[in-house]
């Protein structure tokens, strides 16, 4: 098992009281698998990613990555945050090597590897540009390369496309999907967009309203072999969509 979550729970303490964010979360992920987490807003999806990334400590339960307990940020795991979060005062080249700079790994070899990624995904000619000079789709690709640059095994994607318009979103998610598959990474995507989850992942985990807990886990079966664009036209797509839509139950609390 690449990621193994067992009876995970998190309760926040604040002067006004306790907030139970997550309760009894148990699921695991295989090496190379793409899993999406969908849930109503405020159900603790992002918090779950923070826990796996080692940024917060669970109040109960365990997280194991590659057989080891998570106790802090690890080079095996990389987080792709909401929006692209590129730094405007750094060039594209310096943005994608941010992780290397933080980890003191900014060696010529690592830089060459990152340069290869930039070239492979059509960004090398923009290396000296500023983030604001790039389109939304290209910025997302940069954010992904920044995530890949430190050579992680697992990518945690925290609603990375939420700021994009619908058109861009469809093409960028297909783009990102292709790169993640091509680089053979294990990926966990958090989203509130049901169709995005179905079009990109192998399995979909549905969380309930706060306190977030696992409502259902769907194996997308035959859809797994199709590309995101093809999936949206596949007959199974609507079935999964309606099923998950009902489970999310937007009207009930």
């Amino acid at each position, binding site marked *: 098992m690449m990621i193994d979550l067992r009876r995970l729970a998190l309760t926040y303490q604040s002067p006004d009281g306790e907030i139970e964010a997550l309760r009894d979360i148990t699921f695991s992920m295989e090496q190379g698998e793409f899993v999406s987490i969908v849930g109503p807003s405020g159900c603790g999806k992002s918090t779950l990613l*923070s826990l796996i*990334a*080692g*940024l917060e400590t669970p109040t109960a339960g365990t997280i194991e990555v590659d057989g080891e307990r998570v106790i*802090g*940020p*690890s*080079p095996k*795991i*990389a*987080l792709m*945050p*909401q*929006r692209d*979060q590129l*730094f*405007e*005062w*750094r*060039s594209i080249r310096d943005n994608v090597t*941010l*992780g290397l*700079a*933080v*980890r003191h790994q900014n060696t010529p070899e690592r830089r060459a590897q990152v340069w290869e990624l930039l070239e492979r995904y059509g960004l090398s000619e923009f290396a000296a*540009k*500023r983030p604001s*000079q790039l389109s939304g789709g290209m910025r997302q690709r940069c954010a992904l390369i920044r995530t890949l640059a*430190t050579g992680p095994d697992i990518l*945690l994607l925290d609603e990375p496309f939420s700021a994009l318009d619908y058109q861009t979103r469809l093409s960028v998610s297909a783009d990102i999907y292709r790169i993640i598959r091509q680089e053979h990474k294990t990926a966990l995507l958090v989203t509130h967009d049901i169709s995005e989850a179905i079009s990109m992942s192998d399995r979909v985990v549905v969380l309930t309203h706060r306190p977030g807990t696992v409502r259902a886990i769907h194996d997308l079966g035959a859809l797994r072999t199709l590309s995101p664009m093809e999936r949206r036209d596949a007959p199974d797509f609507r079935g999964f969509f309606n099923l998950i839509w009902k489970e999310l139950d937007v009207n009930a609390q």
Partner: protein
Amino acid sequence: MPNEVPSSQRLRYLAAIRRRKSLIRFWQIFVLAFFLIFWELSARLGWIDAFVVSSPSRVCATLVNLYASGDLWLHVGTSCLETVVGFTLGTVLGTLIAVGLWWSDFVSHIADPYLVVLNALPKTALGPIFIVWIGAGTASIIAMTLAISIIVTILNMHVGFLSTDPQKIRLLRSLGATRGQILRLLVFPANYETLFNTLKVNVGLSWVGVIMGEFLVSRAGLGYLIVYGSQVFNMDLVMATVLLLAIAAVVMYQGILWLEKILKKRLGVIA
């Protein structure tokens, strides 16, 4: 479509903009010229007492005398030097203290009421204390300037540091960044704009500090000239000095704008 001939509407629009611009410039110059001529005429025709309100020609003569005696650059230079030292110290020390407050939330909560009181307090009241403690000289003037600019710098920079995007901090933490790295790679660069705005505010504040300081204790400088001029009832000297002060302040402000442009390019804030 660069080769296309502009439409007649477009040409009329451009001509109207040009006309408006030159009209504004004309009135700007007219107001100044009218003011100067009216001032000069009133003095010459005896409508006002030139001994009390001076006149443009007398101001000019005073400036020429100052220049000829060689004192002009002494006074301008002294005040400018004090201002530059004061606002540089204020900005650097204030930013360092703001970094400390960002680093420790606990310390920043302890410091909070003191900063509120120091911010509300008119710093010029501290002038006599500085003179007693540090002595009647340039050091006291700089201390005064520092007192005025440092509190604003601390408050501005601290607020700027605290408003750093939490998602960007989360990204750096997920990469395993230490607090020092978060400061160096994110919090400080994200606040270059805050720093430049603080610098601009500090230039103005430092002039207040320097002039107040020179009013209290000095043997040279523009503040000294103003006080000296008023004490010997030489209003020509007072008016001439105020004019010099206005010029020096504007030149220094423009200098900061220029420095900002250069630094922004070097720091990579703008491409």
